[in-house]
Structures are given as structure tokens and as C-alpha cells.
């Protein structure tokens, strides 16, 4: 993949830190009842619009960043991120179209997927009862929509500046 990938990766991860800090510090000042999961928008973008190898590396680094904002074990978090990346890739290989609508749909799906994955991993890993609240994660998925629009526009601009090409409808083979 051509382009300044290191600069792009640095900016992406920095933005992820800002998103997590916003969600954990600024958003609770607005309301503590519901919260978006803005970091899902960033991870979904990496899964959809980066080559598999680059995406995996960035997602591992993203898991390290997310770990610093939660008590959830890092290994389980990484497992959930990699698994969701795999599922998103499979969906993208079968159905893909350029544009923001696809990205928004994938973000909503990824948010719900993370809710299920994290709860299931917690139940298996800790032997604890599932604390998955479908309504909370559904509201989070809907709250992610406006944020995903902003993040998509921002990352498209960053990709243009760092000369990272966007994939087309032909699939992911152009990353070779």
C-alpha cells in the first residue's frame, strides 16, 4: 500500500486516544445514563479501509490504547477486536460499496457485535454471569451514527493528505 502509512497510523492512533478520553471524561459530564462507543467507529474504519496486515497491526496497537481506559483485561479485549475484525472482513468480501452509508451500517453492526463478544468472552473467561445489556448497546450503536459521520469525513481527509487510496467496489485485492 502506497502512501505515508506511518504518519497515517500515528494520526489514527492519536485520534483514538482523543476519542477514548472524550468518552471517559467529557461525555460523563453530559450524561452518565447512556454513552456512545466512539472507539468502535475508529476500529471499524481500520477494518474496512486498510489492508489486512496493516489493519491487524493497528488494531493490536489500538487494543493497547483501549486497555489504558478500562479494567477489562487486555488479552480479552484484543481477542474481541481481532474477532470482530475478522467478521467485518468476511462481510466486506461479500458485500461492499463505496460511501458513507456502508461505513455507518458497519459501525452500527460492529457496536452490537462488540457488546455480544465482550460479554461472551467475559462469561467464558471469568465464569461470571453475562452483563450484556442489549438496550444499552443498541442505544450506543445509534449514538455512534453521528460520530461515525464525523470520523468518516475526517479520516477520508487524512487519507487524502497522506495519499492512502480508498478501496473500490471490486473488493480488497487492490491492496496487494
Amino acid at each position: 500500500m502506497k502512501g505515508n502509512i506511518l504518519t497515517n497510523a500515528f494520526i489514527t492512533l492519536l485520534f483514538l486516544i482523543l476519542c477514548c478520553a472524550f468518552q471517559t471524561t467529557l461525555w460523563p459530564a453530559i450524561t452518565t445514563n447512556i454513552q456512545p462507543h466512539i472507539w468502535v467507529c475508529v476500529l471499524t474504519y481500520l477494518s474496512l479501509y486498510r489492508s489486512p496486515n496493516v489493519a491487524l497491526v493497528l488494531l493490536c496497537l489500538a487494543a493497547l490504547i483501549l486497555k489504558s481506559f478500562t479494567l477489562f483485561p487486555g488479552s480479552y479485549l484484543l481477542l474481541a477486536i481481532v474477532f470482530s475484525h475478522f467478521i467485518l472482513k468476511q462481510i466486506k468480501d461479500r458485500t461492499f460499496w463505496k460511501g458513507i452509508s456502508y461505513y455507518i451500517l458497519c459501525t452500527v453492526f460492529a457496536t452490537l457485535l462488540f457488546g455480544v463478544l465482550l460479554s461472551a468472552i467475559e462469561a467464558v473467561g471469568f465464569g461470571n454471569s453475562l452483563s450484556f445489556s442489549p438496550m444499552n448497546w443498541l442505544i450506543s450503536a445509534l449514538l455512534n451514527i453521528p460520530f461515525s459521520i464525523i470520523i468518516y469525513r475526517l479520516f477520508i481527509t487524512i487519507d487524502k493528505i497522506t495519499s492512502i487510496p480508498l478501496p473500490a467496489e471490486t473488493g480488497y485485492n487492490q491492496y496487494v
Partner: protein
Amino acid sequence: MFMIYFSLEKGQNQKPIPGVSSSGGLIQKSYHYLSSGVRGSTGKYLNLIRIKTENEQLVNENLFIRAQLGELTELKKENERLSDLLQFKSKNKSQLLAAKVIGQDLFKEHHMISLNRGKKDGVKDYMAVITTGTVVGYTIETHKTTSKVLLLTDKYASIDTIIQRSRVRGLIEGAQSHALLKYLKVDDDVQVGDLIVTSGLQNIFPKGFPIGEVTEIDKIPYQPSQNIKVKPFLNASTLEEAFIVITNNKDSQQ
């Protein structure tokens, strides 16, 4: 016209011409009436403009004063809160370190807060965190300048406790919105409304510090223990400051 003028000039005692004077006066009166009307309308219009400008200025001033009032109210509330904390700290025998809540967990299901104190302030893992009147939790991860605190309402938190009235010992475990008091025998003396306090046996929390009150007792037949629901006094959503117990004295109050 010249003839009339010269004839008037000749005699100073000459009376003015009646028809001309009265019609002139009538016209003057009507002009005066018209001009006063115009003057009045113009005055009103100018007044309206002035009033509108004054109104805008007053509205802006009002908004500014309201904003200042809001700020002062906030300062007043912060002052009251900090006074309570200072009073609480001075009464407590343990060495307390004041800290501000700077964040919470990424996932709502995990009840964790971040404080702005860390290793450089003398904070270590498994130090008690309290606030005025109740237990908050204990530090679970400390970094150089920040610490993560596991709240007592988290499902992975457990604190050794006793029932203040009957001195029965049990273990409080978090359960999201409430807590469960576990490992009490079925014949242990516990009633709804009993105050649950820290036992001090873990050497983390000061002894006798309030945690919550019993709200529900469920005695299942043929079971060796009873399920007790506790309503914690902690309200994590409004928590802004807390104390980290650096050195613990067994008795929490003077």
C-alpha cells in the same frame, strides 16, 4: 402689496388688516396643530428606536448577569463540598489524600473511576478510597500520576464488612446498581434497615466506615446462607472528589 406695506409703515398706530390677520392666525393654528402632531409622532418613533436599543442592551446585560450568577452558584456549591471534605479529613485519624475524579471506565458495565493521584503521591494498589460518609472502593491500578479505583458497586469488588447492630460478619460484593451481602448463615441476625460498615479486618479500610443499608433479605428454605440485598450510600454518578487512605488507623472516627 407694496401699497399695503407703505401704508402700514406710515402710521405706527395703524391697526392690522382684520381679514388677513385672522386667516393668517387660523392657518398658523392649523400648521401648529399639524406640526405638533408630526412632532409627537416623530418623537414617539425616535423613542421607540431608543427603547429598542436600550432593550437589547438590557437583555445582553441580563444574560451576562445570569451567566455570572450560574458561575457563582457553581463556586458556592464547590465551596460547600470542599468544606465538607475538609471537615471530614480533619476529623479522620487516617492519613488521607484528596483526589479528583477525572474519568470513568470505557464500558458502562465496569464500575471504575480514575483519580488524579498516583505513585508519585504515595498511592499504591489496594488502598481504600472513601468520601464523606461512605466507602467508594479501592485502588486497583496505580500509575505515576493517576490511579484506577474499583467501585464497590462493580461485580468484581468485594469488601469485608460487619452489620453494625448485630456485629455479624459478611462480604459485600457489587452487583451493578446495588450490592449483595454474602456468606451470612441462615440464622444470623440481620434485619431490613441494618447499617453495613467496614470490618477493618482487611487492613485496607478504616473500621466502622458506612457502606450501605440492608433493603431486602431472602432466606431460601434448606439453604445454609441467606441472600441479602444492600443499597450502597455511594452515588458514583455525582462523585467529583474522594480521599485515598494512605495510612489506615483501625478506628475511622474520633
